[in-house]
């Protein structure tokens, strides 16, 4: 990456590494969302963003590191299923907490803290 033309070359030849960088950025954004927001629903959204980034990593790395054909796709199916299960349970918990305390702020949920 020394000369500008080489830099342009690496920029325009899309490799799985490019996809990995995008996925890492998405993961970091999701993590920041989980850490800086109070609303529990938005924390769930951040987790969904992180799971999405893991799917991109699986598909890009499955191509790059020579997994068995389409094995990465199977794992993506599993991750999507787990994300759906997690969203269902998380939102049910949030609604139950809202009904109890009329609040969905994550720092309000301290019932099990001692």
């Amino acid at each position: 990456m020394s000369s500008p033309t080489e830099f342009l070359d690496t920029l325009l030849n899309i490799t799985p590494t490019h996809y990995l960088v995008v996925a890492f950025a998405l993961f970091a954004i999701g993590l920041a969302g989980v850490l800086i927001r109070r609303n529990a629903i938005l924390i769930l959204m951040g987790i969904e963003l992180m799971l999405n980034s893991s799917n991109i990593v699986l598909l890009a790395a499955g191509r790059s590191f020579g997994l068995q054909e389409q094995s990465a796709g199977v794992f993506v199916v599993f991750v999507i299923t787990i994300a759906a299960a997690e969203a269902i349970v998380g939102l049910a918990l949030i609604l139950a907490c809202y009904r109890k305390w009329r609040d969905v702020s994550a720092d309000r949920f301290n019932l099990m803290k001692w």
Partner: protein
Amino acid sequence: MSYSLSELVRPLIFYLLSFITLGSAIMVVVKRNIFHSALFLILSFFGVAALFITLDAEFLAAVQVLVYIGAIAILILFAIMLTRRISDPLVRQTTRSYILGAFVGALLLFFLIFALLQLSPTTPYAPQTVQGGDATYPLGELLMTNYLIPFEVISVLLVAALIGAIILARREKRTGKRGEKR
């Protein structure tokens, strides 16, 4: 070294999709109104689905649109509307240490990219053509042969999550007034 137009199409599409995905993800985190956050989340999911298509995973892109946008995002929108009074923009939306949170995210990104550059797999992206032109068939075959037991386990997990969600979201019976129909 000059590039022809056809060589530029794939990078341009990739960068456009990445911009849409990451930009709307950032908007999810920074928007004060959580309803707007959810709408940007849907846009981000669409961007990821399009990235799946550029990775030759058309079936998974369809699953992404169906499950994430059709189910999870709509569920999140429902939850926001059910908790509307709390989610209005007047309530303080960030934790006290939000600078620290953003810093941790940036630090993680830095370390991940650093580790990736140490690894640096530079194999160029080559679209692989599956025989018959359909990547869905081997996916289904793997699910029914090599990954049969994980597939069954994940089905049980999904059922367990559904039952748990129903139990959690059910209204608690009020103990004070007997025989009250709710």
